[in-house]
Every structure is written in C-alpha cells, then in structure tokens.
C-alpha cells in the first residue's frame, strides 16, 4: 500500500500565515515563562528577571539561573530540532507515521552514545553529540537500505522495521549498561529522556549542530516541495532526488543527534509535531519547517512543565509524557488511515 501525498490540508484559515507565526511566537514566549516560573516552587516574574539580569545570589536566583534556565533553553531547542527532523522524515519517506522514533533513529543515536562512552571512552560533549548524530545517520542508512534492498517496502513496513531496530538497539544498550556498572548511573540518567538537571553547556554545545542541521533543511525546502510528490514528478521538475535525499538525511541526523545528545531520547515529538505544523500552515516546506520548529519548541517546553506536575511532587520523565501523547496520536493516525 503506497501513500500518495494527501490533498493539501491547508485551508486558508481566518488568519494569514504571518498571524499564525505571531501567535506561535507568543505561545512560545508564554510557555518559556511558564517553564521559568512554575515547578516545585513558584517564582514571580520579578524573581526571574532578577535572577537573569541581576543575579544577587539568593536561593531563588540560584535555582532559576542554575536549574530552570538550562531546561528552559534545552527543551525548546530539542523540540524544534525534533519537529523539523520529523517533518523532513515524513516528506522523504512519504509516510505520515514516520519520525525519528518510529524509524529507530533515536534509539540508534542512544546506542551510539552508549557505545562511544563505554567502548571508546568518549567523555566530551562534542564527541557525544557527534556520536549521536552518527548513530542516527547509520540507523537511517540501515533502515532505508534494508527497505530498498527488499525491493521497496510499504510505509507501514518501514515503520515496523524501524520499531524493531529500536528494540534491538534498546536491548544492546541494556546489556552494555548492566555489564558496565561504573557508567550506569551517569548514562541511565541521560537515557531517561528528560530536560531536568542538564548542564547549560549542553545547550551551547547543541545549538551550533541544530543550526547547521536547520540551515540544510531550509536550503532544501523548495526541493522537498517537489520531492513530496512522486519520484518522476520530482525528477521532471529537475530536482536531483538522490542528492536531496542524502543532504536531507544528513540534516535529519544532525538534528536528531543534537536533540538526543542534549536530552536523551524524548519520544514521539517528531511524529506529532509535523502534523500540527501542516494543519497550521500547509504543505509548503518553507512554512512547514518553520511551523514545525515553533510548534516543536512549544510542545516540548509545555511537556517539560507538565512533567513537573503529573505525579507531583515527584517529577515524571518528560519522555514518558511525550510517549503517551505520541502513541495516542499514532493510534489516531492509524485509525484515520493517514498511514
């Protein structure tokens, strides 16, 4: 069963796209403020302001600058990266249930980080980010290579291959971790998929990788527009499909790898976000990718805030929350036969 590109879902809404972007930016700002102020302790906006611009060393300022700020920076960056990566993967595979998770890229990136740490003794953040990106890329090559080798698989089958590959990677991670207890604590924490207790250096380390990945993505936007039709149409429009696909996968791997190296595997963000983005601004990739970045950032920031309250006073891993939402979304997509 092949997936034709669905008829453009974009109905010109009441408001023009610029208004939508404005709204999304406003929402992002609100989500960001919520992330700074809400939590186990509530802080006022004045305290946030003081902590950021006139840190006087009070307890509140220390918590805000040291604990709240890193997660309020990492969450939107990881969300934006996963959103853009998800939108590209869905276009490339012409598959509305494809995402870095359902294709196993997150799991591959996690495995690569664990192998790099345990086997090669990599400790630097840059090294781990590169390892994560490499793991995502290698997984993409394997999953799509296997699919191509089998004479082109249906979109549903590719997802099954990806999910199975993910469980394989999880098993390998589990074995590596339990047989190397020294590394267990540090890595287990990271593997839980969360924004809490991350050093802010992770943000500054991930930012350039995300920017490069996003730059490639936006440079490919018009080619991706052509690529979402069938292959011959794209070729007829003069799009070098192989080169576009290759570059797009590099971009997807950088984005996924950066997100995983910052936050660990935060599940199903890349699956859910592109659907929202297309609903809002339509299929054109210039807009789709922008909206995916914004909605992704809002989504993970809000999920991170929700994680603090779901089982209050304990904090839930944000990856578990996005997984519940994402898996339910997958069920809805399957029921609507969007895949």
């Amino acid at each position, binding site marked *: *069963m092949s997936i034709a590109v669905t008829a453009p879902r974009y109905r010109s809404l009441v408001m023009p796209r610029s208004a939508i972007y404005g709204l999304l930016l406003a929402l992002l700002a609100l989500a960001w403020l919520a992330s700074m102020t809400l939590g186990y302790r509530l802080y006022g906006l004045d305290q946030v302001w003081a902590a950021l611009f006139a840190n006087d060393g009070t307890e509140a300022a220390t918590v805000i600058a040291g604990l709240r700020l890193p997660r309020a920076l990492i969450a939107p960056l990881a969300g934006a990266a996963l959103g853009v990566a998800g939108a590209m993967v869905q276009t490339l595979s012409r598959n509305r*249930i494809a995402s870095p998770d359902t294709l196993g890229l997150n799991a591959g990136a996690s495995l690569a980080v664990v192998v790099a740490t345990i086997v090669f003794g990599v400790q630097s953040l840059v090294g781990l980010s590169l390892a994560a990106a490499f793991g995502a890329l290698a997984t993409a090559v394997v999953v799509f290579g*296997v699919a191509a*080798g*089998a*004479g082109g*698989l*249906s*979109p*549903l*089958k590719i*997802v*099954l*291959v990806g*999910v*199975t*590959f993910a*469980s*394989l990677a*999880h*098993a*390998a991670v*589990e*074995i590596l971790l*339990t*047989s190397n*207890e020294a590394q267990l604590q540090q890595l287990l924490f990271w593997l839980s998929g969360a924004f809490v207790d991350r050093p802010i250096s992770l943000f500054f380390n991930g930012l350039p990788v995300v920017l490069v990945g996003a730059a490639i993505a936006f440079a490919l936007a018009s080619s991706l527009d052509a690529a979402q039709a069938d292959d011959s149409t794209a070729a007829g429009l003069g799009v070098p499909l192989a080169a576009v696909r290759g570059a797009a996968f590099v971009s997807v791997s950088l984005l996924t790898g950066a997100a995983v190296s910052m936050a660990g595997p935060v*599940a*199903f963000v890349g699956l859910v976000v592109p659907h929202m983005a297309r609903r809002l601004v339509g299929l054109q990739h210039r807009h789709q990718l922008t909206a995916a970045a914004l909605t992704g950032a809002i989504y993970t920031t809000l999920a991170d805030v929700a994680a603090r309250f*779901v*089982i209050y006073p*304990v*904090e*839930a*891993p944000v*990856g*578990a*929350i996005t*997984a*519940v939402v*994402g*898996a*339910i979304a*997958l*069920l809805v997509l*399957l*029921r609507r*036969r969007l*895949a």
Partner: protein
Amino acid sequence: MTYMTYRPARAGIGPIGVTALVAAIFVLLFLAGIGFGSTWIPLEHVAHVLFGGGDKTERLVVLQLRLPRVAAAAIAGGAIAFAGYLLQRITRNELASPGVLGVVDGAALGVVLFMAIFSNETNSLIVSVAWQPLAAALGAISAIGLVFLLSGQQASTAIRLLLFGIAVAAVCKALTTIFMLVGPIYQASQAARWLAGAVNTINVTEIQLMLLVLVPTGIVAAIAARHLPPADLDDTSSRSIGLNLPAYRILIFFLAALLTAGAVAFAGGVSFIGLLAPHMARLLVGRARAAGIAVSILLGAIILIGADLLIRVAFAPTEVPAGTVTALIGAPYFLYLLMRKDKNNG
C-alpha cells in the same frame, strides 16, 4: 471437521519424533541449567536430587537456589510461546506475538499499578502477592482488547494490526515508567529490572502461583486450540467453512492474554519468545496442531533457559536481564520475516 488435507506429508522422523527430540533437548538443558553455577553439579546428580535423592548440601543448592530460576524460565518461556502460537494462528499473522500486540506491556502496566497502589512506605505489599497475576491479567486483557477495538475492520491487515499493537504497547510502556516513579524508589529500581525480563529473583511461592494460573489456563487453551483454523486459510475462505466465530476469537485472545499475564506477572517482560518459538515449531513439525503446540511450548522454555544460561556464562557476575538476550535474537529474526517476500503486505 478435519484438516488432515492441509497436513504436509513429511518424510523423516515425523511430528512425534521431532517432539520427542525437542523434549529430550529440553530435559537436558533444564538439568544443565540447574547444574551450572559456582560449582558444577553433574547432570545425573541433579536428576537424582529432583527425584528425591542426594545429600543435604546438594538438595539445598539444587532445590532452594537453582531450581526456582530454571523452573521459572521454563514456565514463563513455555507460556509466552503458547500465547504466541495461539495469536499467530487466530490472526493468521506470522508476525503476531504477545509482545508486539501490547499484551506483555499491558501485563507489566497492570503489575506496576498493582505495586504502586497496594504497597506501603516500607516497600511491602499490603495485600497478598497472589493478586499480582490477576493485576497482570487485567492489564493484558485490557491491552489486547484495546488493540482489537481500535483496529476494528483494519485488524484483517496484518501489518496494520501490528502497528496498533505497537502503539498500545508504547502507551502502556510510558504509563509504566510514570507509575514506577509514584511508588517508593527501591521498588522502582526493582521494577525496572523485572520489566526487562529477569527470572533470577523468583522464589518458590511465585513459581507455585505461576503454575496455579498457567496450568489450568494451558489446559483450557489446548482444548480450545482444537478449533483453530489452518494457518494458510484467509478470512473469507475460513468464513465460508464456518470458522469465523467472533466469540471463539475473543476466547483465544483471552486465553493468550492470560497465558502471557501468568508469565509476565513474575518473570517480567521477556520479549520475542512468543514470536520465535511458534515459528521454529512450524519449521520443525509443519502444521500438525498438537505437535505444534507441544514443540512451541518446549522451544519457548528452551529459549528462555538457554538465554538465562548464556547470561550466567557470558556476563557473570552481572545479571543482565534475560529479556535483552531474547530481544537480541528475536529482533533480527522479526526483521528477516518482515523482509521476506510474503503475503503479509501492509
């Protein structure tokens, strides 16, 4: 009603011979699993102890320390394999298994919820542990029920059904993670190891409970399985010979869920055995039903005992969860099945 015509004429030792051979391998591996440890106990000694002989030390080591672990692996592996056999036959889907249809994760969610609700601050259960299989069964039945309610008409498409199962499994898994944090910390780390499939911490009471649930269920399932349609009939053809009884389907799902729950309740989420064992059984004995069931169960037990033994040999002294080893073998096999050109196109 007879399916004799579908049974392949086989040369060689035939289904009964194969079953006997697999049973012999199972017995040997079972004894080896008990014999292996910090000190090797020769197989004949192990057998001797199991039949009531042996000196005091050997009796203690074999019966108290080593037997529960191997017995748990055998029971859990066999039960999940049987559940996989039932599911593959009733859905006519060679890729179906308790793991991929969300039954394993549903059962795990049931157990974690049970632990979170019914334990006090000192990590001890405030109700009898005998209720744990019931909690697992409720979770397993809810999960498989949800998969089939949601998939509805689409259930007849093999791949689609699996994706519904995977999504339901993902919901259960994420909820399990969240609820693990609600309970005391100690319990969470225990639960995490149990979830990955560990048979090393099981005690005699738990084994008795497993048997109490699984033996009656297994007998009922074996009787019910007499009406399973031949695997290679499609929906329409089987309907035309009067096999599409919705109630019968529900019964089989229910029994498969119970079998899985009984195993998962104490042995944890051992993945892919429910996929592997029925497949290998079919390769070995073709479509013969009684032999297929027997060989599936025996192979399930063999795989899990073998995985557990491998862990003790290769990773000692760390205890890698047995479920990871079965996943390392099972996942590539699942991929191979997916890749093969077959009728199961999505």
